[in-house]
Every structure is written in structure tokens, then in C-alpha cells.
């Protein structure tokens, strides 16, 4: 499958784009053999430091590297300003939506989105009804997946409002690039991302419970060292200078969540959890969970701990809700969404289902609750049999799926054995919400390494690139 895509460095029509001009000058002076060498250096650095992720269902490759490409993805200061306005608006709307949906449900009363979409949604937690999180923030850390179609068209692909991952790669990618090509960073002014851990820490401290006396104690909650994103959990705890805890370290003591230290139990005020809602509290959610803390929800309801992101935020980034985001943004901000949505067919609607089944070989079909690129079909890249098999699954449980047109995601060059070659990319900027909204200039660029592939997920053979926002 070949799609005519917009190349961010060298579009066919207009030639080299301005954000890439300084980099291109530098690149032309480089010896290709040296670049290949640098690429191998990069891999060695990653393996040595143990920056790996686990792939579920692959015994042998239980620890793999996410491939890193040394050609940066470059965004001009102007483009970035436009993007941040759109992201800010969206993040405001997400938090307002969550507050509304767990309180007065005005948006349902106004019939802007259907009631059953909420009531019958597993991501909606009835336990959160009427609960107001400390500082009123529901989703503190958000990774908005953005795709680009042309010079001026950006779309939001997904709002990751529960526990977006990948920020450690953003930081390590920059670190690696600065080690490999220090001279580049002297010639080109790139806005820094290194202070993300400090910003995260400040942001978490700012949303501490009102009852906290003095500086709050913050901890990162991980499912453990066998989790696919464990490296990131450890990395963030380390960079923030806070404890990395597991469920087994925590218990409720005197109405507070406390961690077992060598000197006894110590109170925690803010918990940055990287554990799913359903595992958070065996007394409230899944009783078989050993990853959470029995009773933490009672502490939370009493306002004695901040959980970031709040339980129940999943209702905001659910794929079934996604298609209503333009309405949601407009409802809460009073303005049209600056960043558009990709047109989406909700297979739960009979007309849409009919259309999707008839055009399945042209569409991308996703599971409503899926993530990580699992359980999706890219029609144009699938065989006839794969399409037929998927159609059966779809027909059996239509409300489980949404479909979108196969977009020609923009491309960026990567370094291959045969020189530079374009590959499809997306972008995940990271947003921090406390009493303010902060967006780190850049984010994680994911790149589909296979020629023509549109799936950028690391679990499906995607790689990453350093993302530069120019200080121009």
C-alpha cells in the first residue's frame, strides 16, 4: 500500500521546508559511514542503560529495545504555538468534562452526548460520582496523540488521559542526541525538554490534598519490575527524587496511605500511579488485585491523598467518547475545537456499521477499549481473509468498534542502510495540569519503521525519534 503523504522535511511539491534548513545543511556535510556508526552507538547506549520495554506474549524477546532513529523530527516555533493552543483547549475540556460527568452531568442533560454511552461504559466509575479530587484536577498528565496530514492540517488521534507512557523515551532520546551530536545543538537552537521531571514534581506537589502539612511526600506507584513500562516508572521516580513503590509497600494507616520503610510506615500525600483503575483498590474494584492498596479509595474520598491521574479518567479518553470530542470541547470552552478530530464511524450505529462493513478494506478499525495497537485492523494493508475475519468479529459485537479513514500520516526521513527514507510518524506531546497547564516543547515522535506502514506503536515494530521544537 502506498499513500501519497506529506513529508515534513522534503515535500515533493515545495522542496525543503524551512524548519529543516539548518539541519539539512549540517547533514550534507556528514560522512554517511560516520552516521551509521552513530546509530550503532545509540543502540549500545540504550542497551547498556537497560532502556527496554517488554512485549506481551513474546517469551524470548521479554526485554526489547525500542528502535531509535537519529534523524530528528523538527517543528518550528510557530507550528508549536498553534499546536499548544489546541492542546490547552482540549485538556481544559477533558477536565471540565470529567468534573461534569461525575457531578451534575450537564452535558447529558443538554443531550450533547447520549446517556448510554456513559452509563454502560466500563471506564465510567460510579465510585467517583460526587467525589471532587484535590485541587479539582482529574487528569494531571496527558499525552495527546497528534497526526499531521499536510502543511496546516493536524488532527488528534487519541487523548491519553489515564496513564500516558513514553515520556522517558522523549527524555532519553534527547539525552542520546546531545551525546551523539553535541555540535548540532550549538548550531541549532532547540527548546529544552530536560526539565520535565522537575515540572512533573512541582505539578504533583501543587495538587496535594488540602490537609497536607509542609512539603508533600510524593511516590510513583508501579505494578512492578515485570511491567512493560517499568523502566519509565523507575526513571521518573529517580529523576523526580521520589520513592518508587509497589502495592505491597503500601497500606492504609490512620486514614492515610503509608509506605513501609526501614523505619516503619510513612505517610504519602500524592501518588502518581501507573496502575490501572481496576487494580487500584481490591476492596473497591478487582478483589484479586495484588497491585493496589486495600482501602485507598476510602482515603481518597476523605480527601487525604491525591491520586494522579484520578480514578475514572478513562471515561474521557475512551474511543467511543472520542468521536464526541468536538462537541465536548465546544460545550465546555464555548469555542470550536482548534484541533480537529479524525472523522469516526461509531459501529454501534446501524448506518455506520453498514458503511464500515462495506468499506472495511479502506478503513482503520479499532477496538473501543483497545490500546497499544493490539486488536486493530488497517484495511488497506490487510489481506482479504484478514478483512473477512475482522468483519465477522465486528458484526458480532459492533459496539466494541469504531472506524476511521486510513489517513496518509505525514512522513519524516529515517536513516536506513540505503540512506534517508521517509516513514510515517505521529506525535505525542506531554501535558501537565495543576493550577496551570504546562506543555513540554516537543514530545515523543513515534515512527513506523516498516516502509509504508502506518502503525507506529512500539509493540508493533514502531520506533522513536527525538522531537525538536525550534526556538525561533
Amino acid at each position, binding site marked *: 500500500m502506498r499513500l501519497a503523504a506529506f513529508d515534513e522535511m522534503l515535500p515533493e511539491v515545495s522542496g525543503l521546508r524551512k524548519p529543516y534548513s539548518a539541519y539539512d545543511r549540517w547533514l550534507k556535510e556528514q560522512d554517511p559511514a560516520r552516521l551509521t556508526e552513530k546509530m550503532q552507538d545509540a543502540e549500545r547506549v540504550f542497551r*547498556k542503560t537497560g532502556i527496554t520495554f517488554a512485549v506481551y506474549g513474546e517469551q524470548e524477546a521479554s526485554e526489547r529495545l525500542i528502535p531509535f532513529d537519529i534523524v530528528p523530527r523538527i517543528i518550528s516555533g510557530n507550528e508549536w504555538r498553534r499546536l499548544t493552543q489546541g492542546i490547552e483547549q482540549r485538556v481544559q475540556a477533558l477536565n471540565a468534562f470529567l468534573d461534569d460527568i461525575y457531578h451534575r452531568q450537564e452535558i447529558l442533560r443538554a443531550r450533547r452526548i447520549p446517556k448510554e454511552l456513559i452509563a454502560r461504559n466500563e471506564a465510567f466509575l460510579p465510585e467517583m460520582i460526587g467525589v471532587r479530587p484535590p485541587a479539582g484536577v482529574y487528569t494531571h498528565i496527558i499525552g495527546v496523540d497528534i497526526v499531521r496530514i499536510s502543511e496546516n492540517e493536524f488532527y488528534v488521534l487519541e487523548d491519553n488521559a489515564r496513564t500516558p507512557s513514553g515520556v522517558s523515551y522523549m527524555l532519553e532520546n534527547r539525552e542520546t542526541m546531545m551525546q551523539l551530536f553535541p555540535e548540532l545543538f550549538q548550531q541549532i537552537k532547540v527548546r529544552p525538554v530536560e526539565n520535565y521531571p522537575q515540572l512533573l514534581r512541582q505539578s504533583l506537589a501543587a495538587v496535594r490534598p488540602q490537609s497536607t502539612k509542609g512539603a508533600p511526600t510524593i511516590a510513583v506507584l508501579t505494578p*512492578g519490575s515485570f511491567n512493560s513500562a517499568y523502566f519509565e516508572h523507575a526513571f521518573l521516580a529517580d529523576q523526580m527524587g521520589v520513592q*518508587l513503590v509497589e502495592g505491597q*509497600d503500601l497500606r492504609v494507616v490512620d486514614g492515610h496511605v503509608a509506605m513501609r520503610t526501614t523505619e516503619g510506615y510513612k505517610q504519602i500525600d500524592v501518588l502518581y500511579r501507573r496502575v490501572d483503575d481496576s487494580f487500584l483498590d481490591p476492596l473497591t474494584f478487582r478483589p484479586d488485585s495484588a497491585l493496589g492498596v486495600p482501602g485507598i479509595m476510602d482515603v481518597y474520598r476523605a480527601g487525604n491523598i491525591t491520586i494522579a491521574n484520578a480514578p475514572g479518567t478513562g471515561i474521557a479518553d475512551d474511543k467511543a467518547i472520542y468521536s464526541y470530542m468536538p462537541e465536548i470541547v465546544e460545550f465546555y470552552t464555548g469555542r470550536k475545537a482548534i484541533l480537529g478530530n479524525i472523522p469516526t464511524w461509531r459501529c454501534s450505529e446501524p448506518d455506520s456499521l453498514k458503511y464500515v462493513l462495506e468499506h472495511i478494506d479502506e478503513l482503520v478499525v479499532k477496538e473501543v477499549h483497545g490500546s497499544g495497537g493490539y486488536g486493530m485492523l488497517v484495511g488497506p494493508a490487510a489481506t482479504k481473509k484478514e478483512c473477512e475475519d475482522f468483519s465477522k468479529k465486528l458484526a458480532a459485537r459492533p459496539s466494541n468498534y469504531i472506524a476511521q479513514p486510513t489517513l496518509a500520516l505525514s512522513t519524516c526521513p529515517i536513516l536506513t542502510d540505503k540512506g534517508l527514507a521517509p516513514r510515517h510518524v505521529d506525535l505525542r506531546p506531554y501535558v501537565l495540569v495543576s493550577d496551570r497547564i504546562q506543555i513540554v516543547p516537543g514530545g515523543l515522535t513515534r515512527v513506523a519503521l516498516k516502509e509504508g506502514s502506518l502503525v507506529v506503536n512500539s509493540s508493533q515494530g514502531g520506533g522513536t525519534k527525538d522531537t525538536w521544537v525550534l526556538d525561533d
Partner: protein
Amino acid sequence: MLLGRTANGLYWMNRYIERAENMARLVDAGLRMALTRTQNASEEWNSVLLSAGSDAAFTQKYSDYTAANVADFLLRDTGNPSSTMTSIETARNNARMVRTALTRETWESINEAWMSLKRMLAKPIDERDLPSVLDAIKRETALIRGAFYGTMLRNEIFDFSQLGTYVERADNTARILDVKYYVLLPSISWVGSTLDNYQWESILRSVSAHRSYRWVYEADYKPSNIADYLILNVRMPRSLTFCYRFLTEHLKFLGDDYGERHACHVTAGKTQAMLSAGSIKDIFDAGLHEFLANFIRDNIRLGDEIAQDYRFY
């Protein structure tokens, strides 16, 4: 402030690094004995396995005490919970768990040791390569130790790590002595037989002390000197006294930092007092084997108390 689980991870990470290296040292000593004393090779390998605490598991799998079998079992068998490969893997899993407590250099040295040993021990070791494999294991653990001592802050993290190292080391030295205690008993003749000489050298070799012994005692091997060296010498880094000097020191740091003393302080203090008051003659008079058996038991108890007192679980 340190999580109990992190203290536990640091403690076991270091016990397993120490163990990975001790296995190589034991195989090294056995190999030397087998080369010089071909007749009793299988007996030697048997005592190597006893010192490693792995004899029962070994005989379940093998019937012959050969260099190839023992080396395979002690160095690369992932079914053996104490083999070098299992130990380094367990050490790395612990290191991964406590990664936030380690310097980048320390973590990377452990990760690299794991990567390189995994590669080296993936296939059965050719007997001709055994010496170089043993060297490589000792080099990797030395690199970890170097990174650790060179970069780690001397705080509670360091203390718990050192407790693991010295509890494991004391256990190892005591077991080596106990397996061979009978060759150290005073004999009627002043000069040991050639066989005894080999045995003595083997004991020293298995704690890498065959050269340093000569610096200290100059003369020939003498059982009471060897026992004195490995039990009471304050400067010999693998002696029981040396281990307890550091165990009590790090426990004292923890006690001072936290302002609290526990059962483990009492246990370590007792053993330390017993070692510093005793002479090798007293130990022989009371019975070397009994002494060592008691020591091993108390040392295990110390480990349990540390885990309990500092809320490892």
C-alpha cells in the same frame, strides 16, 4: 528514607553478586586440586559441592563428579538456584527493582555483567576455556564492586548493600572451612603430608588467599595458621572476623541514623565479641566443627533478624 522492599533488594542483590563470584572461586580451587591430584578428583569435587551447599541437588542430576559436570552445575545451570548464572540473574533482577537507589555506574556494571555472562554461559563450557571463563566471572564482579565503591553515597543504601555482602561472605568462608575442617585438625606430625599440603592450599585458594597467606605467615602451611587466618585475621578481607567487623560497623551506622537498636545489633555484637576475644587455640580446644556449625547458624539468624528488624517484607 528507604523502603523496606528496597533495603531487601539491595541486601539480596549484593548477596547474589558475592555468591556468583564465590561459585567461580570454588570451581577454581576444585579445578586446581583435580589437576594436581588426579586420583582423588571426585572427592575434591564432592567437597566443592558441599562448600557450595549444592551437593544434594547435584547428585539428583548427575552420577559422576567430573570437572565438566560440576563446573556446568555451579556456573551455568539455571536450574541451580545458586549457580553463577542464576545468581547474576537474581542480582540483576534485584538491581532492576531497586534501580532508583543505585548510581548509573553501578546499575550499568550489573547490567553489563549479566549481558556478558549470559552470552558466555549460554553454551556448555569447553574444559580448555574454563580458566578464562572463571577469570571473566571474577572480572565482572570486580567491575561491579569497583563501580559500587567508587560511586555510591555512604548512606543507608550503602549499609544494607554491605550487610548483604558480608553475611554472604561470612557464610561462604565458614562453609569452606567446615567442609574441610578435618584436614585442619592438629596432627601428630608437625609437617603435613603432601596430600595435606594440597588440601591446605586448596582451602586458601577457594578464598583467593593462597598468596596473601604467605605474605602474612611467611613459612609453610600450618593448619592452625590457616584457621587463624580465615577465622580471626582482622585484615584478611574474607575472614569471619573481617566480615563481622564490617557487619557491626554498618549496623551501628543504621542504628545511629535511625536512633534505634534491634535484635540484629545484639546478635552481630555477640558474634563480634566472641571473635575478637577468642584465640585459635580456644577454638580448636572447643572443637573447630562445633565452632563453625554454631557460627553458620548464628549468621543465618542475623540475616533473618536484619530482614525482620528493617521490615524487608
